Every structure is written in C-alpha cells, then in structure tokens.
C-alpha cells in the first residue's frame, strides 16, 4: 500500500480521535490527495461504474473513472459484466479512447496488442518476430497476462466495482438500511434521460459533505423558503451504516394536502411570492410511500437522489486537490409515459448545474476552498446533533457528515 513520507512536514493533524472536528488541511494537502487515491478510491470501497442498461448487448462497453483511474466496463459474450483498468500492459498506453460503444475486442493503437472483453490478453503483434528474427522472449505467455481487473456487482440496475479483493460484498458493505434505500428508488428498469457534468473549483470532499449536510438546505437554498416549497414536509430521518460512509436521509410530504393547498392558493391570491408556473414542483407520489426527498450516498463519491420526481445519480470525481468533476446522470423508468417524462424534465429545473435548489451547491465548496487558500490551519466544527455518527430521527444534524469522516479516517489510517 502506498505510504509516502510526508514531503512537506505539514501532514494533516486531526485535533482528536473524534469526528466532530475536521482539519481544514484535509482539503488543501497534496500528500493527502495522493493517499486518498490509494487508500480510498483504490481501497476497500465500492464505486459507481455505470448503469446496467448501458450494457445491453455483448460487446457493449462504457469508459469511466474510479478516482483518477480510467476503467472500462464491458458485457462479454457470456453476458457477464467485467471491469478492468484502461491501461495496456505493454507500455501503459490508454487502451480505449471512446466513451462508449460496441466492440469485439480491444486493440491497443500503439503496438497492436489485443484483449478480449474480459480483459484477457489475446494477441501480441509480431509475437514470433519477422522472418524468424526478433519476437517476444520465449518465456512470455499471453495467457498469463490480463488487464487489472475490478470486482463487479450489480444492484438496482447500477453496476458497482472495487479494486479491493478483501472488501465485503456490495450489500454487506452498503449495510441493510442503504440497500433498502437504494432498491426503493431503483425498483424498476431505469432509462437514461441525459447527463451533465459540473466542474467544481474545490476539493471533492467539500461536495460530498455538502450532500450529507441536511443542515444547510433551508438556509442556503433560498428557493425553498421563498416559495415555501417544503412547508408541508413531514419529519423524516437519517440512516447511517455502521462504517459511517453510506447513508440516506429522507423526508415525507403530504402530497394531497400540497395539491389542495396549491389549488386553494390559485383562488385566494396570497401576498407571498408565488411561482407563475407550478409544474416545476408539481409532483406525484410515484413510490406510494409519501417520501418526497431521499438523498443516499455511497462512500466515497456516489449519490442517488429522489427529489420529488427527479431521479439522478451523481458521481463525484476528484481531479486534483482543488478540482472536482460532478456528473449528473438523470434517470427515468421504462414504464414512464410521456406525461411522466415531461414532469421529470420540468422538475429537472430544481437540480443540476442550473438547479433552483442545487445551484448554490455548485459554488459553495469553491468559496470554502478560496477561504482556505494558504489559510488552512485549524479545524471545522461538525457538532450539530452531537459527536457521533448514528442514525437519527431528525434532520437538524450533521451526523451523516461525521459518518463520512469516521469511514474516511479508518481507511486513511489517520
């Protein structure tokens, strides 16, 4: 395992064994960033790779990344899903440049080595030399070489992968609560409505913390209070797995009362601000359980959200200590009719890079990063709702953030 000597002598120092104070240097330190790639992204964690629906036919592939590492996901002739590192074993060239497609095999453009859909090396150009001269060293056996493999599991139509041989199976690792939350949302065949990528000028951890932060929503996102969007929300709760890093929070809504209230408002003009067109929030209880918001995270960098009728996966990809790619993968379901699709698209204004209740999350991490520039001594305070990372029945809490740090510190050995 990678274990660099601290090069600068200013290694991140945690104030205590606790998780309710987070050293600011964790967001700015280059050595920490390098260690995270090894210990977290290539460590004992499961990562979003793609949707199973993107790999319908044999030969379908998707190119993605786990942390900074380029990974290919394929469906082979036996219909098994495989994942392997997108790096030719010969001289390390990027094997496949395409984002997605269908192939019979992968051929490296540099010297023509070929691999099958499971990542096994199948061909070496001029292996026997030319006219009996040259060629591969006699002890080299193609059969003994393959692209570095990831373990793969599929849950709720989502393909997950891990570099780790020893991490528990996906469901055990997620924990029963989070499995329940994930399969609740992904309870039927999903369809891809589209993707958007946001470039965030901040450390990746500032974004995942923001997602787990139920405290800021009604304060930072003025849209919610201006239009009294969630005034008929009912109490929800937070579930956190024992390791701490996987969680979901939810809130319920009295959908019928909300519809009635809107109708009512149309008749008696209130002095409050009103939306001219309510279709951006007009929602249906598609799961039949009254839950209107469910935010689920999978450590370290995946989010599955249901915000009313918007369903999306968000993937957080570190791209340097102060740069993050946030991909939004917007979903519908195969049983959606045109009315439902249009509803999802209109509510889509709530989320994404231009989202009425998401726009602020795009810059707030960058503001923190800016404030920390050469000013990163000390620690942030994460004490709303106490010092532990337990499941809770109220949302004015930072317990899910503490859960992240609990899991993080265990993996980082800090």
């Amino acid at each position: 395992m990678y274990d660099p000597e601290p090069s600068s002598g200013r290694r991140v120092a945690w104030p205590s064994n606790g998780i309710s104070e987070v050293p600011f240097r964790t967001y700015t330190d280059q050595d920490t960033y390098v260690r995270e790639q090894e210990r977290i992204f290539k460590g004992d964690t499961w990562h979003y790779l793609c949707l199973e629906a993107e790999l319908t036919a044999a030969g379908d592939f998707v190119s993605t990344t786990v942390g900074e590492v380029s990974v290919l996901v394929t469906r082979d002739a036996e219909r098994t899903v495989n994942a392997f590192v997108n790096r030719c074993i010969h001289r390390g060239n990027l094997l496949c440049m395409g984002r997605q497609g269908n192939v019979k095999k992968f051929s490296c453009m540099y010297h023509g080595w070929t691999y099958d859909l499971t990542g096994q090396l199948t061909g070496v150009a001029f292996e026997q030399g030319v006219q009996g001269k040259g060629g591969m060293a006699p002890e080299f056996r193609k059969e003994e070489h393959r692209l570095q493999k990831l373990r793969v599991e599929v849950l709720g139509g989502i393909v997950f992968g891990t570099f780790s041989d020893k991490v528990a199976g996906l469901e055990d690792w997620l924990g029963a609560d989070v499995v329940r939350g994930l399969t609740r949302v992904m309870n039927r065949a999903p369809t891809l409505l589209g993707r958007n990528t946001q470039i965030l000028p901040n450390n990746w951890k500032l974004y995942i913390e923001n997602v787990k932060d139920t405290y800021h929503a009604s304060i930072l996102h003025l849209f919610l209070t201006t239009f009294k969007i969630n005034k008929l929300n009912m109490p929800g709760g937070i579930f956190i797995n024992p390791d701490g890093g996987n969680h979901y929070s939810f809130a319920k809504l009295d959908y019928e009362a909300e519809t009635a209230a809107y109708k009512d408002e149309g008749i008696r003009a209130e002095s409050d601000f009103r939306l001219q067109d309510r279709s951006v929030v007009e929602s249906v209880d598609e799961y039949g359980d009254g839950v209107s918001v469910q935010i689920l995270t999978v450590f370290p960098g995946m989010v599955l959200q249901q915000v009313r009728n918007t369903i999306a996966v968000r993937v957080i990809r570190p791209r340097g200590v102060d740069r993050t790619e946030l991909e939004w993968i917007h979903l519908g379901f195969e049983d959606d009719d045109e009315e439902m699709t249009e509803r999802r698209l209109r509510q889509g204004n709530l989320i994404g890079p231009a989202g009425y209740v998401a726009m602020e999350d795009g810059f707030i991490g960058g503001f923190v990063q800016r404030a920390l520039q050469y000013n990163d001594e000390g620690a942030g305070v994460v004490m709303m709702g106490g010092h532990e990372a337990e499941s809770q029945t109220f949302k004015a809490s930072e317990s899910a953030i503490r859960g992240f740090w609990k899991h993080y510190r265990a993996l980082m050995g800090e």
Partner: protein
Amino acid sequence: MTDRDEQAVRIGVQELSGLYAEIIDEDRLEEWPDLFVDPCRYQIISHSNHEAGMRQGVMYAATRGMLLDRVFTLRQANLYEPHRYRHVVGPYRFKSIERDTAIVHTHFIVARIMHSGETTLFATGRYLDDIDISGPDYKFRERIVVIDSDQIDTLLAIPI
C-alpha cells in the same frame, strides 16, 4: 415568398437574435420572456445528450410562466457569485423560411465575466430556433441552445 420578403425575414430574425443577446448581456432579463410565444420551448442541452436523442438538459421552460419564474428566482431566490455574459452570435443558417415560420440555426460563443473581472470562455454552441414571423414582432416558438461541451464550469445561473 419574394426575394424581397425573404430578405426582410432574414433581417428581422437577426434583429431578434441581436435583441436576445443584448437583453441578456445588458442585464435586462425581465424583457427576456417577451421574446417567446406562450407556450414555448426553451432548453439548454449538451451536444452529446441532444445527439443521442436524450431530452434532459440543464435549463428548461415550456411556458411563459416558467421563463418568468427563471428570471424571478435569478433575482430573488438563488445565490451565485455576480457575473455577466457577452454573447457573440453568428453565422446564421436559414434552414427554411415559410409564411409564419423561420427555422434558423445560429452559432454562438459566450464569455463569462466575473465581478472580479476574470473573463473566461463559458460556452460555445448553436441555437436551433423555430421563430414565429407572422406578426410585426418576431418571437421564438422554440429556442434550443445546444452547448458543445458536457462540462459546465461551477454553475449555470443566467440563461444562454
């Protein structure tokens, strides 16, 4: 349609497109919804989503009400670091001109100027327009803003 009429339509369409850019760049967004008929279709969508036939974009309005709400929230209910745009629009490609309708594809680039003065190339792409030319004031029935890149720097607050 005579050549003369067609020439008038070309000039009218360019006027509308120029007015659109001026309204946004000079921060007169309250006038922006007036450039559309009701119902309408305004959408910002990435080239790759659009090419793949996927419908999810970044910003979407199907009615005048939705356009008004976008402007209102921009002013009152969203927070973002102050910035403005500068559009450069053209060339224009007139795909078809009929009695009531002009179909026009127009290239654009948009620079973003932060309040600090930092100026960056924010977006490039094409407007795919369906324009109602039946009245004296031309209006958009549909303006699909196809942005070339999937990547949006930080956030997208102001319409493109």
